[in-house]
């Protein structure tokens, strides 16, 4: 390496620095420092004439590095690096010595401040001496985005990315997109019909030229890295050709086999060949191979016989599709906490104890009861309904420790809708306390609590059991301080929200992590809420934590924006101050591999550690952990740090 020719530029910052730091003295002292060939000081280095000085000096004195002793790098590092570039000096050979925020502004004694300024500046000179010219890491990328999960979050994300002009693959493991929102009757706080606002979006997604819809499909493998992920997707056979199926429904009529309907939350049965719900997209029948006789050795094939367009094909095989995508949005959504875990509330043996989504179906005009609140056991209209909030939530001992956030709201909605459906009905709501943060939410709660014949009781329910055809609810009214016993026709448990059961397995496939409760983990709880720790993989919706519809849609949009930002770049660039491995020294102990939160490090075939510069964020944790010194951070090597420490402490 040629001898260092460093230029040091000391800024007065008007009086901000000059008042307490003798900038001439600093310049003079640095002029003596080995490797420094040019020094100057000036009123405002960041001003045009100031930058001009730097540019000219680089040119005239053939500087190999520049140190600007001025303000915090957070302030003007980009400014001077751009200036250097203009003068043909690699920007990574420019460093800022922070003698304002860290010195002149925090000290009064001029001598001491000046001495400290000299020490600070010398450390940066030593750093620059060891710096190498670097170019940003640049990688090509494909122009596709994968969205996993066809609920409202995934649909929103897919539409936004598609609208921005990029290809999207939307993968949904159920036969139809729509997710849980499709099961809802109305939505709080506006009480508009759920499917009325969801269906148009579903249709739009299915029709959008940039969106390829893969329902009844699952992501089984992911490899590669940001910009260039290779994804393998298994498309399960529906045994029905959607293009031929005309929804006549003959097959369903003749099908001899049936099973509990997932969409109707088991309130009714559906046939082995079925369509999840009327507005399902794609609007086509699906043959559920686990229930169908046809796929067993003897073929019943009643459906095929009656299928006029001959859409049924028993020999359909699963397909494995391989796709290249630049970014992945994970919107796997939620599932309700299993009601059977609440034995103390009679769940399981009392048919008239149901969960929130079942109640949504009872309320829904398209539901099994056509919107009439008839209880499962005997189909009688429920005159007295008890709602139990926090069922399975906020109960670290027995159930989920966290608050599921939306239960307060949807319980209020349930109570109100019930009152509309059963004008002479009576609703009781047990709550611990009411959480109604959100636009119009508190007003909505007020509305519900003021409603006649909706009784809010503060307290927990101890036990729920069956007595003849009544459901007895034992609880406590902690405000009145007395026990309460209610004979109910129907009990609705506002169940806690779990991450979808598939979430953890999928996270492993994607090599992203889940938090303690199994929800997808974001890169930073405050600053990077929709990013995972793996570059190019984003998280959104209830899979990341309990959320209501507006939040989920917002996150879907946020994740989409991140993905678009990535797709829109002609090449992906990445800060070059990353880790490099000295292969001569690395013995492949792999200590570094476990250190990296971004899985940037791995052991290659030769048993030597390897850093994927695209993934490395340059924190240097692995460098500290490396027992051989093989791992080094570019432009912040052990040697540089050693030199910096030495001058920081040497006599001035």
């Amino acid at each position, binding site marked *: 390496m040629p001898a260092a020719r460093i230029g040091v530029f000391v800024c007065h910052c008007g009086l901000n620095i000059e008042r307490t730091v003798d900038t001439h003295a600093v310049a003079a002292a640095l002029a003596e420092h080995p490797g420094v060939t040019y020094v100057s000081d000036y009123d405002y280095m960041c001003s045009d004439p100031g930058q001009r000085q730097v540019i000219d000096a680089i040119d005239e004195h053939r500087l190999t590095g520049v140190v600007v002793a001025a303000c915090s790098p957070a302030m003007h590092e980009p400014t001077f690096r751009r200036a250097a570039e203009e003068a043909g000096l690699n920007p990574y050979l420019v460093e800022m010595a*922070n003698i304002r925020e860290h010195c002149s502004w925090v*000290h009064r004694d001029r001598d*001491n401040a000046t001495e400290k300024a000299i020490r600070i500046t010398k450390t940066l000179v030593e750093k620059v001496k060891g710096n190498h010219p670097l170019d940003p890491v640049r990688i090509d990328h494909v122009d596709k985005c994968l969205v996993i999960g066809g609920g409202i979050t995934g649909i929103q994300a897919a539409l936004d990315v598609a609208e921005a002009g990029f290809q999207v693959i939307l993968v949904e493991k159920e036969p139809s997109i729509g997710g849980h929102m499709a099961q809802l009757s109305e939505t709080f706080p506006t009480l508009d019909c759920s499917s009325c606002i969801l269906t148009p979006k579903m249709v739009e997604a299915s029709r959008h030229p940039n969106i390829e819809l893969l329902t009844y499909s699952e992501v089984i493998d992911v490899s590669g890295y940001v910009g260039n992920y290779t994804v393998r997707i298994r498309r399960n056979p529906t045994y029905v050709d959607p293009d031929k199926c005309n929804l006549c429904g003959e097959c369903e009529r003749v099908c001899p086999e049936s099973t509990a309907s997932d969409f109707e939350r088991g309130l009714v049965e559906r046939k082995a060949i079925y369509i999840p719900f009327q507005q399902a997209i794609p609007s086509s029948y699906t043959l559920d191979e686990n229930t169908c006789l046809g796929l067993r050795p003897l073929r019943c094939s009643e459906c095929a016989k009656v299928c006029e367009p001959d859409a049924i094909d028993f020999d359909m095989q699963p397909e494995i599709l391989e796709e290249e995508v630049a970014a992945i949005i994970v919107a796997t959504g939620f599932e309700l906490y299993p009601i059977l875990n609440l034995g103390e509330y009679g769940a399981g043996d009392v048919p008239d104890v149901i969960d929130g989504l079942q109640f949504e179906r009872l309320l829904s005009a398209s539901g099994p009861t056509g919107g009439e609140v008839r209880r499962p056991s005997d189909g009688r209209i429920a005159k007295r309904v008890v709602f139990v909030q926090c069922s399975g939530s906020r109960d670290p001992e027995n159930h989920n420790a966290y608050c599921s956030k939306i239960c307060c709201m949807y319980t209020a909605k349930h109570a109100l809708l019930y009152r509309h459906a059963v004008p002479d009905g009576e609703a009781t709501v047990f709550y611990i306390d009411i959480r109604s943060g959100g636009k119009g939410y508190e007003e909505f709660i007020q509305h519900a609590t003021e409603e006649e014949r909706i009784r809010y009781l503060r307290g927990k329910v101890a036990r729920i059991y069956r007595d003849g055809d009544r459901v007895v609810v034992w609880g406590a009214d902690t405000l009145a301080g007395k026990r309460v016993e209610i004979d109910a026709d129907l009990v609705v448990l506002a169940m806690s929200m779990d991450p979808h059961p598939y979430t953890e397995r999928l996270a492993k496939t994607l090599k992203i992590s889940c938090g303690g409760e199994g929800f997808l983990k974001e890169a930073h709880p405050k600053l990077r809420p929709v990013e995972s720790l793996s570059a190019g993989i984003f998280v959104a919706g209830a899979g990341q934590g309990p959320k209501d519809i507006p939040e989920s849609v917002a996150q879907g949009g946020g994740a989409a924006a991140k993905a678009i930002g990535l797709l829109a770049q002609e090449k992906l660039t990445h800060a070059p101050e990353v880790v490099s491995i000295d292969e001569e020294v690395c013995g492949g102990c792999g200590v570094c591999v476990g250190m990296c*939160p971004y899985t940037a490090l791995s052991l290659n075939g030769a048993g030597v550690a390897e850093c994927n510069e695209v993934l490395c*964020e340059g*924190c*240097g944790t692995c460098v500290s952990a490396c027992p051989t010194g093989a791992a080094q951070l570019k432009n912040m090597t052990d040697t540089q740090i050693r030199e910096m*420490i030495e001058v920081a402490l040497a006599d*001035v």
Partner: protein
Amino acid sequence: MSDPTGPFEPRIVAFLCRWCSYAGADLAGVSRLQYPPNVVPMRVNCSGRVDAEMVLGALEKGADGVLIGGCHPGDCHYVSGNYKTRRRVALIQRALSEIGIDPQRVHLEWISASEGNKFQQTMIQYVERIRDLGPCPVVEATPAEAAPDG
């Protein structure tokens, strides 16, 4: 300038993580919060980059104390670098006490970007502590025997 023969003025280096403590120091500056000038700050990307060689190296090169500033637990910009540093510092302090150096000379503090005050207070208290401890014995010990042609 600094007079080696005069009353003891501690020499201290501080390794500050770029995202929290260094920014916290910037905030202290912007807020004009005064503190002693004995500490020379150095910016590292993450407190997780700080290792025993840096700390012991500083003591060997004449530091009377070494301060490490990182993000609060849970806030590390790189997720968990600060946890590793915390463990390293614990072990370094064990080693120091085994060789007769007061472990307080190495100090780890969580300072967020919004804690200008905490940065100031940390500096004031830490410099005082080191002033009380006196010069680090490592600084004085030059192994005459080991000096070439002693």
